[in-house]
């Protein structure tokens, strides 16, 4: 991956049609070893970037789905207390207390969660693609904790020491956010920022034919034109690319050859997820 063009073609081969801007940012993230911070509306293909990167680079993908209350135990590591207690009981039975003291806080009793897994894989020489998905869903304390991981690619475990990925084998980190709240500047500073926008009509058509090749060409052009028109309407939630693909597949499943009002009406639910939006489009459609 030595040029921006090679990134573009690599992504395309893996099934992702990226615009030049996104390709440039991905290229830089790979070269500079920086996390990639992708923000954008739901369904524009942010998560997909990480999946495709893993396929393109032939690396394992480790995914950390964020939610409110996500804590260290489920994001980084957890001491396996049950196993530790078992070891203590066994050692007591053997009358061998010193081995317990030495071993009870060793790697054997640690359960690795996504962040630690990623760093350990990197240490072992196979740096993975680490996807931290929908970071805006996690709460702020978790963001603060991520700072160490994202800037130094290391994780400090008080009882064990520091696990660090070496500079030349760092995981490729992709952070996504739907922007339901602002992520703190300190975290964004450590990343390369890119706003993933809705694609233009040409690129969207290319995406549809790549990801849903079974759709007839004439229909695919109509579909894309229709969706592009919807995005210009005053809707509460404009359809993303994911919705375009869903809709294309729905129409193909119905053996539709062209778009007619009845079919559109019946399948609108694949495209729009708010009742008010559906009503508005129906009113305009008739």
């Amino acid at each position, binding site marked *: 991956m030595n040029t921006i063009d090679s990134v573009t073609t690599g992504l395309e081969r893996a099934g992702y049609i990226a615009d*030049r801007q996104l390709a440039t940012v991905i290229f830089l993230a790979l070269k500079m070893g920086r996390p990639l911070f992708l923000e954008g509306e739901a369904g524009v293909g942010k998560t997909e970037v990480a999946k495709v990167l893993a396929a393109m680079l032939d690396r394992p993908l480790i995914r950390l789905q964020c939610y409110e209350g996500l804590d260290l135990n489920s994001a980084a590591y957890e001491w396996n207390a049950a196993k530790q207690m078992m070891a203590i009981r066994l050692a007591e039975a053997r009358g061998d207390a010193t081995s317990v003291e030495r071993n009870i806080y060793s790697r054997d009793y640690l359960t690795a969660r996504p962040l630690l897994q990623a760093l350990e894989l990197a240490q072992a020489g196979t740096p993975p693609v680490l996807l931290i998905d929908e970071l805006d869903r996690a709460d702020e304390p978790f963001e603060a904790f991520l700072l160490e991981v994202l800037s130094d690619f290391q994780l400090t475990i008080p009882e064990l020491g520091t696990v660090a990925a070496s500079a030349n084998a760092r995981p490729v980190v992709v952070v996504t956010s739907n922007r339901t709240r602002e992520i703190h500047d300190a975290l964004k500073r450590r990343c390369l920022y890119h706003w993933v926008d809705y694609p233009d009509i040409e690129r969207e058509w290319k995406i549809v034919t790549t990801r849903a090749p079974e759709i007839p060409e004439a229909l695919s052009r109509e579909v894309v034109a229709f969706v592009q028109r919807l995005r210009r309407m005053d809707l509460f939630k404009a359809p993303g690319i994911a919705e375009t693909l869903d809709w294309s597949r729905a129409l193909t499943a119905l053996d539709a050859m062209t778009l007619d009002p009845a079919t559109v009406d019946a399948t609108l639910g694949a495209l729009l997820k708010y009742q008010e939006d559906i009503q508005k489009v129906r009113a305009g459609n008739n």
Partner: protein
Amino acid sequence: MTHLANNIVHFARILRASGLSIGPDRVQDALYALTLSGLDHRDDVKAALAAVLTKSIADRPIFDEAFRIFWRDPDLESKVRAMLLPQVESRAGQQKAPMANRRLAAAFFPHAAAKPVAPMGTQEIQFDAALTFSPEERLRRADFDTMTTEEWAEARKLVARLRLPMAEIATRRFVSGTRGTHLDFAASLRQSLRNGGDVWPLIRRQPRTRVPPLVVLADVSGSMERYTRMLLYFLHAISNAGSRASRVETFLFGTRLTRITRELHHRDIDQAVAKVEDRVSDWGGGTRIGPCLKSFNYEWSRRVLAQRATVLLITDGLDRDDGGVLAAEMARLKRATPQLIWLNPLLRYEGFEAKPAGVRAMLPYVDRFLPVHNIASLTELGRVLASNQRGTQHGTDRQLYASR
């Protein structure tokens, strides 16, 4: 290379002057990024710089414009500065002398106390029967000059006395404690080893509690202006009440919606209010509640209501145009928040009925309907928020309201 470095530094400086926050480390990154992306394609250079120098989609318009002008021709730099500087200077120029000056003036010349103003605060505010709301936007500045020392002191007293005690809600995050239902084995083990391993204290996990955020939507149209102005002081106090208090997002609306959260975070109340005054262009004008709520719902609700925020809607509901927009947007707002509280100064009138179309459209969607016209009603608001009876008071308030 040094020439390029110089240009990047200048470019970053221009962006910084236009309000983007760019540290020196970012400049270094930008240079590095450019050596990687190459300088052959203008678009690549732009994408590379944008990736490093912007931190939000909101930065993009400024960045795009600056990039367009700056990188057209490096020699144009002085021109660019000339083009960008007036903006910067005008922003600086708008920094009004803090209102402390007016207080100072009043302190120095007490007898010159300008116009006689009905004292605000403890005394009931005379309701302006003229109901000066109109659909036209009157783009005029708020008239803060009428705020005298006396009035200001009343407001200060009000603010000093009031806190907004909010009931804490349980989060899904846990802390070690004594009252939890789950045992924290790892912590128990650690604790026992610390004491030699003989005694096993049982450490439990209990949910951490947190104050939910508060989102305030306040009406600044002609008929509401006085109340909202008084409330600004209150909002400033609760916005800066410290880390354990709830995060407050504040929006003002008349004919358009303006977010003033940032302005209110200014430590000095007078500077904060001056900044708000600068930002809000529709003080005392008409009111279009429906479209304003709509722009809140579309642009902000998903960003500020995500964490179980309570919404305070401060308006008299006197809106002319309805056409279903208002009811639809109220319904949407209600669905996005666990607790929607409507503060209406008209509610203190004995004979107040839900006659205006706006009030009728909004009422079905509010959880609490409370008066807001004096200190007592604000204290009542604090009591309601502290009671933790989220959305359960429908009946009582309605009855209360119906009995009037």
